């Protein structure tokens, strides 16, 4: 068992990890930037270390300060949370070098999954279908048309060094392909310093469905069900839910088996998520990528199954191994998560850092709140805009939606705008109620969900 864990993160996930550690009797060391002195994770931890100024590059991303701090407090483990250094293979290796257990997969696993071409190859070897295309490999402009003809239009041109939707361009025919390829290369060069591009078949009518896995690092892997994260805006997940309400039992089983097969083939250690596109027209699924960390939306899985994923991460990292087997994973009811952000939904989601003059979180049956915020807390402008995650559970999806509406409507946040009004509007759309949407629906219908005020520059 780990004895003392440094949490290399901030915000709600730092609070989440501290709680899991304390339940296991593991001492906790928080780190914080000068801007986060008053954050809840600093207060809840057994010890807290200031690791630099507000800028993340000089604090939460500063591997030297983090490893130095861990050595100074004699921590035997580092939990990276999500974001920041969570998928930094070098940081995972540096922890090993410093004799500190990195709570997550090995640097090697992180690298394999970070390289799209390698990840696709490994998926294919594990028998997991991938989106038809150039298999993540860079394509010469001269070869483009040939590859596109082979996989069929429309196609997506993607930057090899890109991610999160940046540097993507659509081409519906050979003319568009030749036009957009040059632009894509130039943009990739400007954005990532690397002009390599690759091709993928474009799947227009799809859901984003991801499978939660836990691996023991020795080939033993279980899945903990799937989450549907198709409600997205600018490739950011807005609402997550589980189970996916639009797939058949066969497709669901296929997803689960594929995720386990891929993870087992790389002796995956810890919590991970295998992301898929589910083609609603073809009733087929394709591997997109694997996230080698705990995810923002992990509570959806936790309230559905009763499995504490962060606890399992810590047990695996500490050598106890995971506490459950596949047969112990039992799903019940329906879960939905809304990310409440300090953003003004009516003004193009403009960030709205500032002080929470009044703050009363919802509670009661089936309502879970993961947050680092409290009355009087100032949301700083330097990091992401998340105020809280609200996760509701109910016996069925309709009740879960009604419960989420009630929780959001009773959430008192005064002092700064939040995305609560937007979420309330979104939950009431026919598309969401009936689950008739795909990954592009929100982007196309955002004006109908919540009319945007014209911005005065």
């Amino acid at each position, binding site marked *: 068992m780990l004895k003392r864990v440094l949490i290399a993160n901030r915000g709600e996930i730092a609070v989440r990890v501290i709680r899991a550690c304390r339940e296991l009797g593991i*001492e906790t060391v928080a780190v914080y930037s000068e801007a986060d002195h008053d954050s809840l994770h600093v207060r809840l931890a057994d010890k807290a270390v200031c690791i630099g100024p507000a800028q993340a590059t*000089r*604090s939460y991303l500063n591997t030297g300060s983090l490893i130095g*701090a861990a*050595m100074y407090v004699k921590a035997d483990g580092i939990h990276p949370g999500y974001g920041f250094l969570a998928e930094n293979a070098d940081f995972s290796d540096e922890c090993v070098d410093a004799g500190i257990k990195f709570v997550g997969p090995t640097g090697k696993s992180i690298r394999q999954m970070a390289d799209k071409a390698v990840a696709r190859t490994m998926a294919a070897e594990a028998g997991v279908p991938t989106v038809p295309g150039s298999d993540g490999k860079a394509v010469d402009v001269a070869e483009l048309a040939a590859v596109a003809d082979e996989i069929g239009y429309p196609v997506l041109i993607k930057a090899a060094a890109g991610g999160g939707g940046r540097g993507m361009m659509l081409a519906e025919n050979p003319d568009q392909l030749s036009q957009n390829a040059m632009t894509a290369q130039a943009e990739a060069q400007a954005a990532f310093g690397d002009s390599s591009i690759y091709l993928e078949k474009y799947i227009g009518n799809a859901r984003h469905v991801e499978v939660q896995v836990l691996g023991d690092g020795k080939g033993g892997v279980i899945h903990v069900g799937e989450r549907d994260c198709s409600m997205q805006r600018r490739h950011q997940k807005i609402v997550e839910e589980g189970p996916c309400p639009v797939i058949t039992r066969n497709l669901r089983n296929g997803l689960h088996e594929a995720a386990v097969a891929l993870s087992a083939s790389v002796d995956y250690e810890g919590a991970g998520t295998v992301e898929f596109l589910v083609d609603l027209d073809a009733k087929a699924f394709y591997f997109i990528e694997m996230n080698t960390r705990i995810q923002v939306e992990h509570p959806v899985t936790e309230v559905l199954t009763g499995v504490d994923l962060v606890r399992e991460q810590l047990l695996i990292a500490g050598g106890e191994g995971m506490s459950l087997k596949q047969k112990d994973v039992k799903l019940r009811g329906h879960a939905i998560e809304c990310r409440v952000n300090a953003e003004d939904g009516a003004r193009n989601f403009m960030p709205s850092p500032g002080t929470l003059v009044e703050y009363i979180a919802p509670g009661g049956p089936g309502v879970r709140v993961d947050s680092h915020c409290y009355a009087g807390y100032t949301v700083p*402008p*330097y990091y992401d805009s998340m105020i809280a995650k609200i996760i509701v559970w109910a016996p069925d999806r309709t009740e879960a939606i009604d419960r989420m509406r009630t929780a959001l409507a009773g959430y008192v946040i005064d002092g700064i705008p939040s995305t609560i009004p937007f979420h309330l509007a979104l939950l009431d759309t026919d598309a969401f109620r009936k689950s008739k949407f795909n990954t592009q629906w929100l982007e196309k219908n955002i004006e109908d969900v919540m009319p945007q005020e014209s911005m005065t520059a």
Partner: protein
Amino acid sequence: MIIRSEKRAERGRAVSLTYEDVQEILKIIDQSSTKEIHIEVDDFKLIVRKHGADGAPAVTTTATPPAPAPASSAPAPAEPEPAQAAQDTSKTEAPSATAQSLNSPLAGTFYRAPSPGADPFVEEGAKVSTGDTVCILDVMKVMNTLKAPCDGVVLSIPVENAEAVSAGQPVMWFEPK
């Protein structure tokens, strides 16, 4: 009676650290790609900037390991730590009577260049026209371009690249033409 969580002092085991421990930490860090170290906890403070990092001329160390290690064995502070967060008046005072400021509209992080490796938008002495993009303000990962408020010359840039700025703080001064 006040109940918060349990008192921190009662929970964390006391860390007993020797000078050798600190040396070990420094060695590990030295081998990493890190340019700067900042560790503050209880009465221990270690701030190191490697040669060449962000224009700092030399390694500067401030370390006070707690009890067992004798205080004298700690490396002597060579330089005060950079008071990055403090706003001294040189940062807010106008450099000339006619100078015009560009103030940050929101709290955020100030960037002089469009991307990490790229050249800055402007240097001191550069000529600008009203509306030219002169810097970027990152507010919660949303990048906002800030524009020159007048035709003229960049007089001074009182803020470091990637520095945190507050709302209303001058980030650039211009001499109008």
